[in-house]
């Protein structure tokens, strides 16, 4: 069965283009042109993924994101023309999985869609304790991390950070979200600490810490654990 994608955008040209592009790749596509319609269709049509524009009539894109997250874990990729980082961060904090800034190439969009769908599929089989990512293996049951077969020693904080990233592999995690989950609510603003720990973690698990292959930086926003699309 092909995946269902709900496109939410008030610009009719963009809606039409995305429908053409995604249908051609075998996805089933529906378009909603305002926030209320998006919420209705998310509930009735049950898409496997949502492409959500942030500036929408009736109900704002951020609000759509928040409301959908109250009852569904459907992957949400935010589309925006805004450069303002805080809009993307707000959407990601509200539970969006990824973002794309317009204008974007179709190849880029398709790659993000594949990652989000894979991530969602993985979520439904979460009981798999051992995860493999190229040269990196993580045994969540035994708190073991192996790089090219060699066990690597991580501090408890480093392990927690890696675990959070791996459990949501493919998804963009904001600074605030990582700090809250790993360090607790009162550390939400302490981005420098997070940077230090990410650097240490990369030194231990990346083959080339200067060009990381696993923990990717999303400039100004947060980090993403890479899974090939």
């Amino acid at each position, binding site marked *: 069965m092909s995946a269902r994608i709900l496109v939410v955008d*008030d610009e009719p040209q963009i809606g039409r283009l995305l429908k053409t592009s995604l249908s051609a790749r075998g996805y089933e596509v529906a378009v909603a042109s305002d926030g209320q319609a998006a919420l209705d269709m998310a509930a009735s049509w049950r898409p496997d993924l949502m492409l959500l524009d942030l500036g929408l009539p009736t109900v704002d894109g951020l609000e759509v994101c928040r409301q959908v997250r109250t009852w569904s874990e459907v992957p949400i990729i935010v589309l925006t023309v805004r450069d303002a980082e805080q809009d993307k961060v707000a959407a990601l904090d509200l539970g969006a999985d990824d973002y794309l800034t317009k204008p974007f190439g179709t190849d880029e969009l398709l790659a993000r869609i594949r990652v989000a769908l894979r991530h969602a599929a993985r979520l439904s089989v979460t009981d798999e304790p051992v995860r493999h990512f190229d040269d990196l293996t993580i045994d969540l049951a035994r708190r073991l991390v192996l790089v090219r077969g060699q066990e690597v020693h991580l501090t408890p904080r480093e392990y927690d950070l890696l675990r959070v990233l791996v459990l949501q592999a493919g998804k963009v995690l904001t600074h605030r979200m990582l700090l809250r989950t790993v360090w607790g609510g009162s550390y939400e603003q302490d981005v420098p600490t997070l940077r230090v720990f990410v650097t240490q973690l990369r030194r231990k698990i990346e083959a080339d810490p200067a060009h990381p292959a696993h923990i990717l930086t999303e400039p100004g926003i947060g980090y993403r654990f890479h899974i090939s699309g």
Partner: protein
Amino acid sequence: MDSFRRWGLAQRYGMSVISVALTTLLLIQLPSLHQANIALLYLLVVLISATMIGLGPAMLASVLAFLGFNYFFVVPLHAFTVAESQDVVRLLTFLVVAVIVSSLAGRVRDQADSARRSAAELTTLYGLSQTISAAVTIDRILHVVAQTTAHLLNVPVCAVLLYDDGGRLAERARSGDPSPEPSRQVDAFLRIGPRVLGVLRVTQRALDDPLTQAEQKNLEMIASQVVLALERARLAEEANQARTLAEAERIKGGLLSSVSHDLRTPLAVIKGAVTDLLDDSVAWDAAARYDLLHAINDQSDHLNRLVGNLLEMSRIEAGAQPPARSAQDIGELVANVLNRMSPRLATHPITTDIPADLPAVQINYTQIDQVLTNLIENAAKYTPADTPIAIKAELEHNMIRVEVRDQGPGIPAGLSTRIFEKFVRVTSPERHADGMGLGLAICKGMIDMHHGRIWAENLPDGGARFIFTLPLHAPANRSALRTAERQTQLERI
């Protein structure tokens, strides 16, 4: 009792002399009073003068009473000599008691006086500081300061002078008129740190009547209050400027995000469609290819229109030379515009009402074409499908009046003037793919160049109309005049 206070010094001393003299006369008339009683009566007089007239006169009264007592009532009578040693003790005791009593009572009185005076000063100063802290203009504050100071220090003239932006000292408020007679002035500087903001200047009551120390102190105190008021006014002014600046920043930010949204949306479609077509893994059928290419074509045109509008707007803002004009037929222009726009107007029935005998008008064809296009485009964009749009032109005095009327929702209250400003849209920036809120601003700029007028109004039975007027003969602009002059000169040669 208060009446004594206003007396001069001589009057007060005179009073104390008179009261001792009267007492002596009275005592001489009374037969055979005991010396002790006489002394007590004298003491009473001394006490009364001390409490009522003041310390100095009471001292004088003490000495006079001592002398009177000695002269008239101590043996030997009518001589200042004393016979018995007991009387010496009695007289000296009397003198000491009288002096002590008068000094004590006098001091109490002086203290009461000064307390009353400072209470009055405090009330005045309190009134002043209340005026200063109330949110009133700086000019009003300075006016009150001048008045209060003159009243408090009992001086004829008080002026407040401040340094203006050019560094000159200028009078900002004054109480009382300067007299032509020579006078002496006392300045209190209005200082904040090392900076002097101005001067609080009072004129002395007379050349030889300088301010007392207490008055000097009051003057300094008022000056410091004025400095506070000036500082407060300056801070308020700065806060106000910061607010205005922040508001301007916010608007600018809003504009940038709206322009960025408008320009990037067509780009997003173009880039998406092109990358689709470039993708070898998909075998596009003819219909899909056509769709994608059509989208690219459409959005390129749209982008071109947006960029054109932006350029046009900056041209108008830069005050570019009004382009050449020629006699044009409005009916023909309307027909041309409608013809060109027909694909976009398919959903709106159009009616025109233009008299065939309308005189030609001096215009720049391209600009008025653009104005009409923008107005019709707006009418089509902001009204529901299938509602009619009516275009009417008529002669009015020596103007051509053109009207575009729709039957849409009308212009929201309060916006009918603002819609001609740049970047102002009836809907919020995120809602519409079309336009940047520049269309009407461009119309206004172009009509202004033609010395015409453009405005919008709602119709009583729903819908809105946009009207512009064009003078039949445009007032010659300066460069045209110069050319004409040159021609006349050439003809003369």
